[in-house]
């Protein structure tokens, strides 16, 4: 909190907060509001950078007491092994409790059917919403950011979901000042987005400032990949490559972490946080535009999935 920002006229205002301090303070306020008002909150934790950032903020918000929330991971069955390893180490290190909802178990039990395109990201909605009902979670923290996607730009910080977890963008509660309304009926829950106002660059700058450890796949490394729809996908048991797709070894890194079947790597030689920040500041592509196939399906793909209960 000691960063002193320089105001544009060159003088130093001792009471100006840097933009990272402002965002941090706002996110911590949101975590504490949920702790104060809800019975059974849970943090969606995938081992991706946004959920890692959220856990870090939650740890700071309640220190020196432990984080008063459990974690929930929706495991598509096609996750990167490095990320699952990171997830388990983190849970262990902070003495947290992790719930896992498994897409693979739903498929094995015949409750979900594999899609023809092999993508499992949209299949997460059912295990997610059923886990929320089963555990009676009343507040579900997500790492969604408004800068990611145009439907997410319309999302409230506190977003009421009905008993089917559905989002109705036209019936959202107005959100005024910092007065978040978390009232909900039994069976309903509230999705909470503490880092709504962060951009991808903010996330990376904060990770650097705080020295937060990340899974290695965020940094450039050699990997066996193949090209599909203009993205580099990791070859693996999940179903790639197909016969005509050629595997090659390239130096790549990931900007987002999701299901292996729809999350693409980018060519990169950024092996350090500094290099990643430089690369993102110069990039002419958004995070999702560069590396997420699921958002390219239609102009309203994210909105449609969010309406169904996707986070």
């Amino acid at each position, binding site marked *: *909190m*000691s*960063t002193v*920002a*320089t*105001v*544009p006229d060159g003088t130093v205002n001792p*009471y*100006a*907060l*840097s*933009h*990272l301090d*402002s965002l*941090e303070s706002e996110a911590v*306020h949101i975590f*504490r*509001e949920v*702790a104060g008002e809800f019975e059974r909150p849970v943090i969606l934790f995938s081992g991706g950078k946004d959920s890692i950032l959220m856990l870090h903020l939650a740890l700071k918000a309640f*220190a*020196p*007491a*432990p984080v008063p929330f459990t974690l929930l991971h929706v495991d598509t069955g096609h996750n990167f092994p490095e990320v699952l390893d990171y997830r388990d180490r983190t849970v262990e290190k902070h003495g947290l409790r992790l719930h896992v909802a498994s897409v693979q178990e739903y498929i094995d039990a015949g409750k979900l059917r594999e899609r023809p395109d092999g993508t499992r990201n949209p299949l997460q909605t059912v295990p997610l919403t059923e886990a929320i009902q089963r555990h009676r979670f009343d507040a579900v923290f997500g790492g969604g950011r*408004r*800068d990611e996607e*145009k*439907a*997410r*730009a*319309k999302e409230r910080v506190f977003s009421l979901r009905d008993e089917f977890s559905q989002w109705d*963008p*036209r019936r*959202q*509660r*107005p959100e*005024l*000042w*910092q*007065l978040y*309304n978390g*009232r*909900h*009926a039994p069976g309903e829950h509230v999705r909470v987005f503490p880092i*709504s*106002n962060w*951009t991808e*660059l903010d996330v990376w*700058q904060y990770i650097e*400032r705080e020295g937060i450890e990340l899974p290695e796949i965020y940094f450039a490394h050699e990997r066996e990949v193949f090209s599909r729809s203009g993205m580099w996908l990791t070859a693996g048991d999940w179903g790639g490559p197909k016969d005509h797709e050629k595997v090659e070894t390239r130096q790549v890194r990931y900007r987002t972490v999701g299901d292996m079947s729809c999350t693409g790597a980018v060519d990169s030689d950024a092996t350090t946080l500094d290099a990643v920040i*430089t690369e993102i*500041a*110069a990039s*002419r*592509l*958004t995070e999702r*535009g*560069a590396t997420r196939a699921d958002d390219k399906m239609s*102009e*309203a793909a994210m*909105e449609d999935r969010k309406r169904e209960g996707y986070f």
Partner: protein
Amino acid sequence: MTTPIQLAEQLSATTLLRFATAGSVDDGKSTLVGRLLHDSKSVLTDQLEAVTQASLGRGQEAPDLALLTDGLRAEREQGITIDVAYRYFATPRRRFILADTPGHVQYTRNMVTGASTAELAVVLVDARNGVVEQTRRHAAVAALLRVPHVVLAVNKMDLVDYAEPVFAAIAEEFTAYAASLGVPEITAIPISALAGDNVVEPSAHMDWYGGPTVLEHLETVPVSHDLTECHARFPVQVVIRPQTAEHPDYRGYAGQIAAGVFRVGERVSVLPSGRTTTIEGIDALGESVDVAWAPQSVTIRLADDIDVSRGDLIAPADDAPAVTQDVEATVCHVADQPLTVGQRVLLKHTTRTVKAIVKDIPSRLTLDDLSQHPAPGKLVANDIGRVVVRTAEPLALDAYADSRRTGSFLLIDPADGTTLTAGMAGASFAAEADADADTSAEDAEWDF
């Protein structure tokens, strides 16, 4: 030219400005927002490509920059902005959060939503039409919400031959009007969002204008206020009590400083109980500090073991607000269901939610001409009016004019949780201007 590395380095030390835009449908608000994003190089290739594809797909020749901000299916179908969209962009000098609010009168509540957290509002006017009713509404909402800085952007200057007298007349009319409402600071800028004049780049067509471009002004307007003049306020969110071997006796009150400055050693009162003690320590997210200020999230430790819980307010012992159960306020009704006299509601103020009853609705404001309608009996969606509310428990409430954070509240429907009404406590928002202007008969008209 700034290199990406320099940009990244500079950005880590910059400040954040939250601002809102307001303008009628055809004033060119989307074009201005699109121009700001585009010319500050905040629209990335894939976003522009998506917008271009979508525009071509519906038969338009050029990319429709409004599609950058209209994120919902229904908005794209109808070609209008229904709900607030938040946009993010950065320059080497500052980072921005833009609340892009709809212009229609039936979406007044959305402008209120956007303006409630804004430090600056951009009110757009078409140079050909000048100050119209909708402009007055936007000025009134900005004044009501006490947005500290207002920019009047006189757009479409290209369509009036970039004529200075046109701009000067509009600027003068608006400034006089807004000042009468108590808007503290107004900056008028002549622009053409379509041609790019004075938005990001200075105009080559208006040498008579010596002021900043819109972006320059956004980059340089001060965002932190003189906190020494603010009443210090700290609403308690949660009590932190680890009860671990390492911290057996730690007891801290976590919250975000709503206003002013707190120091270790300071005498403070805890409201509503009124008990007094001393600040023993301040923990700023893991770091022990001697002084902290708004809007930092911190944990305060007190010298005496007194009863403090969520919903309490910590304030300097010699500068604590009075507690009250009778709240008078100006409100904006934001729900589809009406607010009526006699209605039982919940009132959420800072971290405290209490039962309340609507005792009276003395007046409703007619937004068209800003006249008062006495005793309307109820308020419906988008109405602005005065209300009197009695609460079941005492509240430590400030006037909204003194503190946006501790003077604001929500009324909530206890049955279904709907956010009904946005409230701003205290006397009329124009009271300050009245005092300055030595209350004339005309000023009394603004007393709502």
